[in-house]
């Protein structure tokens, strides 16, 4: 029983051992927070449904390293995103910036919402008219 519990606790601890980037990248909590935010918004292009924060592909760790260097050099978040987009395209960002070619991504959901609301309004309106109009009900 004792052995079992030791194994169990070791097993639980093992998830810490396989965590990516053990420890903090920066001593400064502000920089660390910016770093965490940026790496959780960048797509790992080698493993497309992961962020570079979650991936241990070498490309993800290379990009994390470059982002750390840029933060150390005092680059702004926008400069870092620009660095990534100019090399890997808008697809590299999970939240593509609203500009030019990505505009459709931002507008389309709102267009669908407006279209859906309009369709719903039309249907409701027609049913209201139908139920008031006795003849129409007789026709059905």
């Amino acid at each position, binding site marked *: 029983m004792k052995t079992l519990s030791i194994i169990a606790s070791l097993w639980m601890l093992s998830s810490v051992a396989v965590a990516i980037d053990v420890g903090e990248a920066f001593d400064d909590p502000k920089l660390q927070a910016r770093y965490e935010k940026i790496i959780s918004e960048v797509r790992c*292009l080698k493993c*497309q449904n992961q962020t570079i924060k979650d991936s241990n592909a070498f*490309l993800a760790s*290379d990009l994390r390293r*470059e982002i750390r260097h840029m933060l150390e050099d005092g680059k702004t978040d926008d400069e870092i995103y620009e660095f990534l987009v100019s*090399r*890997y*395209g808008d697809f590299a960002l999970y939240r593509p910036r609203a500009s030019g070619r990505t505009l459709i991504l931002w507008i389309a959901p709102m267009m669908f919402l407006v279209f859906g609301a309009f369709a719903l309004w039309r249907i409701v309106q027609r049913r209201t008219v139908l139920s008031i109009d006795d003849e129409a009900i007789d026709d059905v």
Partner: protein
Amino acid sequence: MSKFVLPLVVFLALVAVFVVGLTKDPSRIPSPLLQHPAPQFELPSLADPDVLVGSATYANQMVLVNIWATWCPGCRQEHDYLLELASESVIPIFGLNWRDNRADALNWIEVLGDPYIASAFDMDGRVGIDWGAYGAPETFLVDKNGIVIHKHIAPLTREIWQRDFVPLIAAAEGTP
């Protein structure tokens, strides 16, 4: 009857969008480098760590920049074709050996043959990032003004070469 037309049109439009989406390969990401200047770089050569090679090696001429590594099965697949292409001396091929091990890479070239005018040794992947590399093999066609005019992701074959590269090279050579 007519009230089914609009939903049907909308439905068919959605189907069309999804069908097109299904035929696209999400692993082929268009390069933002296209029609832009290729990255400038200088790295130790694979053959000799004391010799620097890079964009200056192929300045003012049209070149193929091929990103390769020994861990990359696609690179093995295209290697024979690269050798063939090199022997035809249509265009110089510059190799960017990406995130590799020097001994393995040297062995690869010795055993399989060397299609490259030179290979740069990008051990930490920094230059690969400048090229927007995310999966070797990747092949860039750079014109003599240093502009990237084509990028091919996946192994190069004669069919792809004839279809995608040959017309671009002919067009680029036609313009001063």
